[in-house]
């Protein structure tokens, strides 16, 4: 029997993996991928709650749709910034882009 906790633990694991990628990958595209993983873990949560807590309503699923939309927009803008970084600094590594300091 698969319970809600199973899904939540899976989601938490996926989220942590996403954070690890966000904190460690040097490649900007890799960072964006990690973020997509985190979005997915959030979506798993939403849909799991939708199924187990509010099966009559579709609130969780609708939220997941919005999250996917936002994720798409984020990926679009993020990748545009990566292209820009590549063009202007000739770099896609986020630790190279460290101008925001003294």
């Amino acid at each position, binding site marked *: 029997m698969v319970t809600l906790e199973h899904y939540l633990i899976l989601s938490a694991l996926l989220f942590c993996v996403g954070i690890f990628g*966000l904190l*460690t990958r040097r490649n900007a595209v890799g960072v964006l991928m990690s973020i997509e993983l985190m979005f997915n873990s959030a979506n798993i949560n939403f849909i799991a709650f939708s199924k187990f807590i509010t099966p009559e309503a579709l609130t969780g699923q609708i939220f997941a749709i919005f999250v996917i939309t936002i994720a798409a927009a984020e990926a679009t803008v993020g990748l545009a910034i990566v292209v820009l970084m590549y063009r202007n600094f000739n770099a896609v590594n986020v630790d190279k882009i460290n101008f*925001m*300091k003294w």
Partner: protein
Amino acid sequence: MIKYSYIIAFLPLLSYVLIVFFFSKREKTASGIAITAVVSSFVLSLIALFETLADHGPHIFEYEWIVIPGLKLPLSIFFDPLTAVMLMVVTIVSSCVHIYSLGYMHGDPRFSRFYAYLSLFTFSMLGLVLSGSFFVTFIFWELVGLTSYLLIGFWFEKKVASDAGKKAFITTKIGDLGFLAGLLVLYWAAGTLNYSEVYHQIEENQIPAIILTAAGILIFCGAIGKSAQFPLHVWLPDAMEGPTPVSALIHAATMVAAGVYLTARIMSIIVVSHTAAMTIAYIGAITAFMAASIGLVQNDIKRVLAYSTVSQLGYMIMALGVSGYTAGTFHLMTHAFFKALLFLGAGSVIHAAHTNDIQQMGGLAKKMPITSKTFFIASLSIAGIFPLSGFWSKDEIFASIYHEGHYFLLALAVLVAGMTAFYMFRLCFLTFTGEARDYHVYEHAHESPKTMTYPLIFLAFLSIFAGWVGMPWLEHGYSSFVYFEHPHHAAANYVLMIVGTIAALSGIFLAYQMYYKRAIDPVKMGARFKPVYTFIYNKWYFDELYMGTVIKFAYWFMEVLYRFDQGVIDWFVNFVGRFGMFNSRVWQTFDVYVVDGAVNGAGFMTRWFAGGLRKIQTGAVQNYAFVIFLGVVLLMLFKMI
């Protein structure tokens, strides 16, 4: 009007303020304002006089001024017949002088300022007369002294004028010191300086006689200074360096009369204290005789008049000293009119002749008919010829001296009356009659403009008729208006009248013989009584005496002080300076090493810490993200544990 009598004093003050602050560049407006103010004051004074005639008062009004625990100094007005008479005298003479100055000061570069000073003086004098306590009187007294200084030294480009101003100021200050001391004594004894309260206490015998004597004599010192009495009379002749209208207003009619007024105000003390009374009477007598004797031989027209003024003031003081309250103040009034007239006439002559020396004049009567006629009228009046006003007031003085039984003083007074007649007519004959001794002067002489002659005519009328209010036959004359305690209405003493007239006529006759007919040669006379002549010509050597004693001592003392300054104070100052430098070196070291060190140290520490801390700011977003998640974890830990 009496209730609002302070307006009388404040109108000239308003004029002063307006001229000084708004119209100093517009001479016509300035003089117009000043004349309007003083004439308005005159009209108001007239109304107040009529009210006083109906109700003698005294009317007392108090306005709170300084009220602190243990000290209450109100601004009060003390309005009695004497005040009313003084107001009339001051405003009339002041009005005449204001108008006269239009002509006399015409074209002066500081015309507006002159009118401002005149207004200020009039304000001070009116305030002095109106004030109801010795303290406020003292304030106005000093203000009067200040304006006198300003006006004597009005032509300060002339060194003699500025010197004369200083001399007047300093000399009168010596008297004022006595005045102040007298006030302190009085305040200590009576606890108040209000006229009415002081009088009341004296009447009730609450103040010991010895203290009253001391206070009376000390306050009289102020009068000695201001009224140019012996031995502080030396400033008045020098004060003639000021513009002639000023001499007429201040140094003949009003300010010098303030001393007499003050002496009249301390009449309660004089009555009680025989010592004080005799001191005052004899100082007056000495002054009258001495000044008259000097006046006999002077050649400067204004100086003769100045000594005449001193002499006449001595008369008044003498009268007051023998308790002749009515006589003294009456003579004060009549004298103010004819002496103002004499000075203004002299001013007119000087204006025409451009010289003060009567030996260079002569025959000016033809050129200056109005001036000469009015001058003769005034001379007759001062000489005491029946029925001009001087006759009545002088007779009143004789009568009161006789009444008190001081026959020596009476003899002296009659002698001085004769001398007065002599020197006045010497002046008249030398100036207006005979041959022109200086053709140049004679040629240029001309009658003065109407603004100058009209005041002369007006004052001439007063010189004739003002004294008629004091005729002894009048039932309700001056003596039943201005009196001390109760009206002293002496019957007409025909013997005294005849004696006085004989003295005056003999003086005039002698002058006529010497300076008109030339029957007696004045030079020979001078040679015959050479020691006396030299003595009085040099003004009894008072200036030399003071120069030799007081001023020499002052110089010696100054020298001592200078040495003291050089030796002790300078040394001390230098020591303080050196010590200051040494001290500052010490502190400089402290500054450089300690204070600067602390400041630099603070800066250095800041940089050092910042150098370490700024490394946290890597600029790498992933480091920041790491910190964010660290924060999240810590928050969760904090929440869950």
